[in-house]
Structures are given as structure tokens and as C-alpha cells.
């Protein structure tokens, strides 16, 4: 049994390599992964003079993570279907878990590496990382969580990547505004805090702020736990729904 899991994991790595070569190592994908959150950040920066650089950088890290880890993963399956490569992929001796895990691993690598860009920007402008281990662990866990979210967003059985991009944007942009990126959780009204608590980005932003020396709103252990719980839910739902919708794509 262990051998079976190991073999399937090796095949997930093959899926990951394929995704990186075909979908991620493209200039526009990398540039847009950095530019979109950066533009959002700059737009916000010009309108808010009272917030500290630490607060703003942690928001930029959160946004970059969300946008990069969910940038390509939702469109891989519709793309594969449109390019007539999905059916053959489904004939290989790989389980749906293997397929999704491979897609997630590629997205995790991309999300993690691109998120290091705002971290480096922060360090360059004098932001101190007080708890680097917590930040690194948080970045890795959040990249897994948002990549799984990306795979969940890929489940509608459409073969048009543009449709999935639209659904994806409808989910991602509201998440940015409810997750304490632009407005600290402390000064949100009760209903705002209640809504924020349903977003995994809230907990990642919270632990990033803690790592950069600002206080956290929630206990750090709670931030980690909730991110892990969201990851499990997103992954389980993605597997369950893909099992149903994958055959509908061919």
C-alpha cells in the first residue's frame, strides 16, 4: 500500500513538472503574478497615509500569495480539455488525487517563489522579519491552501478558460477586501470581523503581520489551524467535484 502511495506521489511530481513547463514558465504569467497585487497595493498606498509600512507590506504579501497561487491552477483543467490532452491524461494509471496533487504542487512552487518578491521588497525598504520561521511556514501552508482553492475554482465543467477566470475573479477580489488587508481587523465593525473570519486570507495576513512584528488579532496557533482546515476542505471538495465533472469535459 505504501508503495502504491509512493508511486502515485512520483506521478504527481510528473504532473507538477508538466504544469511548470507548459503553464507557469511563461513570461506573462510571472509578470502578471507580481504586477496585479503590486498595482492594487500602490493604488491603496496612495490613498492611505496613516498605516505603517509593516502593515502595508504584510497586506502585499497576502495579496501576492492569493493572486499567484490561484492564477493558473483554476484554468489548467479547462485548458487541457480545450487542447484535447485531458482525455489521454485520464487514461494513465493515476488517481484523481494524484492529478490534483500534481497541479497543487506546481501552484505551490509558483505561489511561494513569487511571494518572496514582496518579502524582499519589504526587507529592502527596512521592514524587519521578527519571526522568520513563522513567516516561511505560513507562506508554505497558505500557498497549499490557495492552490487547493484554485483547484476548487477549476471544478465547473466548462472547457472555456475565460469562464473559469471570471468565476475565479468573482471569488478572489471580494476575498482581498474582506480579509483585513486594507483595513486592520481591530478597527472593523463586528459584522466585518464575522465576514473576515470566513476567509483563509484573513489568517494568513494575520500571521504575516505577527511575523513582521505587529501584533496578531488571532492567536498564531489558531491562524495555522484554520489555514490547515481550509486546505483540507478545499482539497476534499476539489477531489469530490472533479471526480464528477472531469468526465463531463470530454
Amino acid at each position, binding site marked *: 500500500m505504501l508503495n502504491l502511495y509512493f508511486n502515485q506521489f512520483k506521478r504527481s511530481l510528473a504532473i507538477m513538472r508538466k504544469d511548470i513547463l507548459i503553464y507557469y514558465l511563461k513570461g506573462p504569467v510571472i509578470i502578471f503574478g507580481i504586477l496585479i497585487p503590486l498595482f492594487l497595493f500602490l493604488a491603496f498606498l496612495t490613498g492611505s497615509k496613516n498605516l505603517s509600512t509593516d502593515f502595508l507590506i504584510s497586506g502585499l504579501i497576502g495579496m501576492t500569495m492569493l493572486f499567484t497561487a490561484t492564477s493558473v491552477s483554476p484554468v489548467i483543467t479547462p485548458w487541457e480539455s480545450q487542447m484535447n490532452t485531458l482525455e489521454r491524461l485520464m487514461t*494513465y494509471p493515476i488517481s484523481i488525487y494524484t492529478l490534483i496533487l500534481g497541479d497543487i504542487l506546481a501552484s505551490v512552487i509558483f505561489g511561494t517563489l513569487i511571494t518572496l518578491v514582496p518579502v524582499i521588497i519589504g526587507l529592502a525598504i527596512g521592514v524587519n522579519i521578527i519571526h522568520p520561521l513563522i513567516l516561511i511556514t505560513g507562506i508554505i501552508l497558505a500557498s497549499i491552501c490557495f492552490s487547493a482553492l484554485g483547484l476548487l475554482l477549476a471544478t465547473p465543467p466548462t472547457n472555456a478558460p475565460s469562464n473559469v477566470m471570471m468565476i475565479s475573479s468573482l471569488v478572489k477580489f471580494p476575498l482581498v477586501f474582506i480579509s483585513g488587508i486594507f483595513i486592520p481587523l481591530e478597527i472593523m465593525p463586528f459584522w466585518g470581523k464575522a465576514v473576515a473570519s470566513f476567509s483563509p486570507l484573513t489568517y494568513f495576513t494575520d500571521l504575516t503581520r505577527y511575523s513582521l512584528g505587529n501584533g496578531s488579532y488571532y492567536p498564531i496557533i489558531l491562524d495555522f489551524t484554520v489555514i490547515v482546515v481550509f486546505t483540507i476542505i478545499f482539497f476534499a471538495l476539489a477531489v469530490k467535484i472533479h471526480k464528477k465533472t472531469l468526465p463531463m469535459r470530454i
Partner: protein
Amino acid sequence: MGYVVEVHNLTKGYKEIKSVDGVNFKVKKGEIFGFLGPNGAGKTTTVRMLTGIIKPDSGKAYILGYNIQKEPLKAKEHLGVVPETSNAYVDLSAWQNLILTADLYGVPKKDAEKRADDLLKEFDLYERKNDKVKGFSKGMKQRLILAMALINDPQLLFLDEPTSGLDVQSSILIRQMLLQLREKGKTILLTTHNLEEANKLCERIAIINKGKIAAIDTPENLKKMIKKLNTIEITFDGFIDVQELSDFPEIQEIRKTGDKFILNTDNVNNLISAVTEYAKSKDIKIVALNTLTPSLEEVFIELTRRG
């Protein structure tokens, strides 16, 4: 008798329509089994169920002894599949596509590289191994897809329209490869619209129509299923009175086209003897005598029309 494919009452419907309706057949080890049918007959749906892509509504299928619904991964390990609508990754090279496929089958790296090299040579793609597939012609892409299906040295191959729309050279190469694979003991389930291809390659053929199997047999036996087999075409070097010929008890129907007589009978052997005797008695030579065999196309049209 070792069967590598056993299909029992396989049924699949979409909404109210049954696209595959209680299909049963078996494929022997080492044979090329043809799967013929008009568009929408249920061929591709059947192949998709047999390759574990979609699940049947009812019925069972055993692939190499494994229940494809319950043990899909074990069965798929030994399969090679060329789906009806499939493509290689156009942003990868031929070599990268082959190695990726080998990785997904769990082929060890050294074996994979050797097999990839051999297959690229066999399919006449070696010179282009490092080129991206997006620059390949349709024939080259299809040869690569077939090479990808062979990278794990499968025992059983499912080929859905492998030569459809290809140039003559690629079609011939692929057909030669299929015959070589049969010689190596591989079993092939071939879905095709090309009746001549099925006639030349397949030991047995299943004709599917409206989701049901209309007939399964060897190409020659299928041809016997329609009346035309009992027809001979004969040409003499002298004048023959049609009236005299039509008096032969063996002849059921007689037609004359040009210098040929087309004779319908229920006993070809007796008719040939009688006509030969008749020609001798009249001191007339027989210039040509052919038993007319129906083409597989005629069998196909007849069987699918009945359905």
C-alpha cells in the same frame, strides 16, 4: 482461451438516450479486434468505459483480468490508449512528451529513455525529437501519440480512429506498426471508420449500431452474412443464349452487363460445375470466372440498415 477484454452487458445512457445498450463481447489475447459503427453508434463511449475514463450505468468490464471499475489503476498500468480526440502537449518536444508519459506510467528512467529513443526511430520522428510538437504535421503528431501509447510496452492497446484524416504515408506506417505489434503478441482493440483498414488488419470485427452489437465475427464470415456471396461473374469467348442459362436449376437470378453474366445461386459449387460443363458442351471457352465477394462496406451498410 485467454481473453484480455471481457465485456458483460455494458450500458451507458445520457439523459433518456442509451448510447451503449447491453453490449457484450470478448477479445482474445494477441488479436486485432475491430470495432465498427456509424457516427453516434456508441463506439467511443464503449472505449471510454473500457479505458476507465467514464463509468458505465450498469454492466461489467474486465481488462486483463481486472475489473476496470473497481481496479482502474491496476488495469491502466498495462494499457496503451490513443483516444479519439487526443493531442500531445504542443509546447513540449516529442522527447519531453514521451518521457512525461513514461513518468505517468511509472517506467524507470533508463528504460523510458531507451524506449523513447527506439520509438522515435520506429516512427520516423528521431530527427525532430527535440522540436516542439506545435510545429509537427497531423501525421507526425498522430505517430507521436501512438509512440506515447507504447512507451510502457502495453499488453493491450485501445486505438480510437488512429489513422483518421492522416496522409497515406503516415497511415501505412501506423498500419505496419499495428501488424508488427500483433506479431509481438500484443492485443489491439481498433475503432475505425475505415472498413478496408478493418478488413486488412482485424481477425474479428464487432459492428455496433444504435448502442447494440449488430454482429461479431471474422471479416470473411461477416461477408457471408449477406446474399452477395452467392454470386458468380462469368465471361465466355462466344455467344451464349441467356434463355438456356436461365434454365439451369442452380441459377436463381441472371443478369447480363457488357460481356459478363452475373448469376445468383444458393450453391456456388454446383453452379460452377454446371456452367463449366455447359461451356464444354458448346465448345466455348470461359474467359473469366469470379465469385463475387461482398465488400465489408456492403456488410456494414446491410447490418446497420437492419438495426
